[in-house]
C-alpha cells in the first residue's frame, strides 16, 4: 500500500497519496488526491490528453484505455487502484509519424470527424479485437457456446457499442476495424 502524505491533519481533503503508474511502458510517479480518476490523472496530471473526457460516467467511451490489455473506461476507476497495472493510452499506441495499423485505417476510412471520440474508439477497437481473438462471444453471437467467433460487421457493431460517436462516423469506423481484422486474418 502506498504511503499517505498528510499535508493538513485537520482536513482529510488535503491528503494526497503517492502512487506509481506504468503508462505506455514508462513509470510515472504522482502525488494524487485519492479521488482522482485515472482519466483525470492522465489528462490533468500527466498531460496525456489523448484520452478524452466525454461524460465522466461511463456512458460514452471517449475515455477508453487499455489496462493489462483490456479496454476499460478511465473515468470510472480511481488512479490509486492501478498501481502495478500496465496502462496503455492512445499516445502509446502510435504517433502521427508512426501510426498503429488501426490509427492508419481510421485515417484512410475517414472514420472520424471532430476526432474527440476517436482515441477511445481506437483503444476500444484494440481491446475488442483481442477479445474476439480470445474467442469471447457477444450479445449478437448466435450460439454463445461456440468458440468459433466470426467478426462480422454485426459483431463489430455490437462490440463497439460502448463508444458513442456523435458525428456518427459509425459505418466508417466499422470499415476501418474490418480492414484491420481482415488483414490480421490473412
Amino acid at each position, binding site marked *: *500500500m502506498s504511503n499517505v502524505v498528510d499535508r493538513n491533519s485537520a482536513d482529510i481533503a488535503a491528503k494526497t497519496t503517492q502512487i506509481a503508474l506504468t503508462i505506455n511502458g514508462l513509470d510515472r510517479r504522482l502525488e494524487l488526491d485519492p479521488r482522482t480518476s485515472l482519466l483525470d490523472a492522465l489528462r490533468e496530471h500527466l498531460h496525456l490528453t489523448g484520452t478524452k473526457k466525454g461524460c465522466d460516467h*461511463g456512458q460514452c467511451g471517449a475515455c477508453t484505455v487499455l489496462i493489462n490489455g483490456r479496454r476499460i473506461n478511465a473515468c*470510472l*476507476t*480511481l488512479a490509486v487502484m492501478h498501481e502495478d497495472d500496465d496502462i496503455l493510452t492512445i499516445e502509446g499506441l502510435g504517433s502521427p509519424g508512426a501510426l498503429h495499423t488501426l490509427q492508419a485505417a481510421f485515417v484512410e476510412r475517414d472514420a472520424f470527424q471532430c476526432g474527440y471520440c476517436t482515441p477511445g474508439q481506437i483503444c476500444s477497437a484494440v481491446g475488442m479485437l483481442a477479445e474476439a481473438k480470445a474467442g469471447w*462471444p457477444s450479445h449478437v453471437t448466435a450460439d454463445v457456446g461456440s468458440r468459433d467467433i466470426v467478426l462480422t460487421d454485426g459483431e463489430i457493431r455490437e462490440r463497439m457499442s460502448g*463508444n458513442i460517436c456523435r458525428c456518427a462516423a459509425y459505418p466508417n469506423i466499422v470499415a476501418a476495424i474490418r480492414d484491420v481484422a481482415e488483414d490480421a486474418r490473412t
Partner: protein
Amino acid sequence: MRPFTYERATDSRAAVTAVSRAGAKYISGGTNLLDLMKLDIEQPSHLVDISRLPLKDIDELPDGGLRIGAQAVNSDVAADGRVRTRYPVLSQALLAGASGQLRNKASVGGNLLQRTRCPYFSDTAAACNKREPGSGCSAIGGFNRIHAILGASDACIATHPSDMAVAMTALDAQVELLGADQAVRHVALVDFHRLPGNTPHIETVLQPGEMITAVVLPPPPPGRQLYRKVRDRASYAFALVSVAAIVAAERGTITAARVAFGGVAHKPWRGTEAEAALIDHPASGATFRAAADAAFASAVGRGHNNFKIELAKRTLYRTLAQVTQPDEDTP
C-alpha cells in the same frame, strides 16, 4: 465527490475488518460506485479496495455446479467456457448488459449491488425515499417510463438494473457472504434483494460489513436456456423488460420451467406464477399466454410505464416459444 481515505485489502478477512469503520465502503470495479460518488449520491469516507482479493476464480463444485468468485469481472464470467455451455442464459445476460469496457471492470459482486437507474435517485435536488428516507418519491407522478410494474410500493417504484442477476435468479443461484464476524453464510439470490416497502433505502439482506465473496450456481437445470432483453436502442442501454427462461419439455409437455424478469421490479423478479402455469402443460401458445397473464396478473403501471405490462407479457410469450421450439426463428 467527498474526500475519502483509501486502502487496498490484502485478504477477505482484513477487508471485512477494514470496512467496519463508520462511513467505509467496499470498492471493486467501481463502475457504479464512482458514478454515484461523482453525483454526491454515494458519500463514503473510506474505501476498501477489494478488487485484487483472490476471489476471481470460477471453480467447479463437486455437485456439478459452479462457484463464481465475487471479484470475477463480468466479461470473464461471460466468456468462461463452462458458463457458456452449461449456463448460456448467464452468459447471454451478461453480454446484454453495459458495454465491453464496463464488463471488463464490473465485478459479479458489484453487479448484484448496483443501484437503480431511477433518475430521481441520482438527482440530489429531487425527493427520493431511497436516497433520503422520508423525503418522498419523485417518480410517482413524475417521469416513470423505466419504473417498476411489480412489487413496488407507494414509497418507491424504482427497478433493479442488472441483467446478470436476472439470469442468476432463474438459475437458483446462492450468494456467498463473509460477515463482519468472519462467518460465512449463503443466501438464495431470490431472497438477497428486498422489495421497497417502506424502506426502499435498504436494498439487500446484507448485514453491516458483510462482503459478497461468491455466487454459487447449482448444477444446470434441465431444459434450454434463453435470455431476452428489450430496450430502446440496440445495445448499451438498460432493459425496459428482460426475461430469463429455462424450460424443459418432453413430448410436447413442459416438465420443468424457471422464469425470471428484469426491468420490472425493485429486484430481479422470479416468475413463480408463470412457472406454475407452465409445468405439466403443453408447450403451446395458449400455455405461454396463460403463463404471461399469470406472471403479470398483479402488475400495476404508474403512467409512462403502463406499456411495460403488455411488453413484458409479449416478451415472455415469445421467449417461451423460442426456448421450447429450437427451430423458432431467432430475432
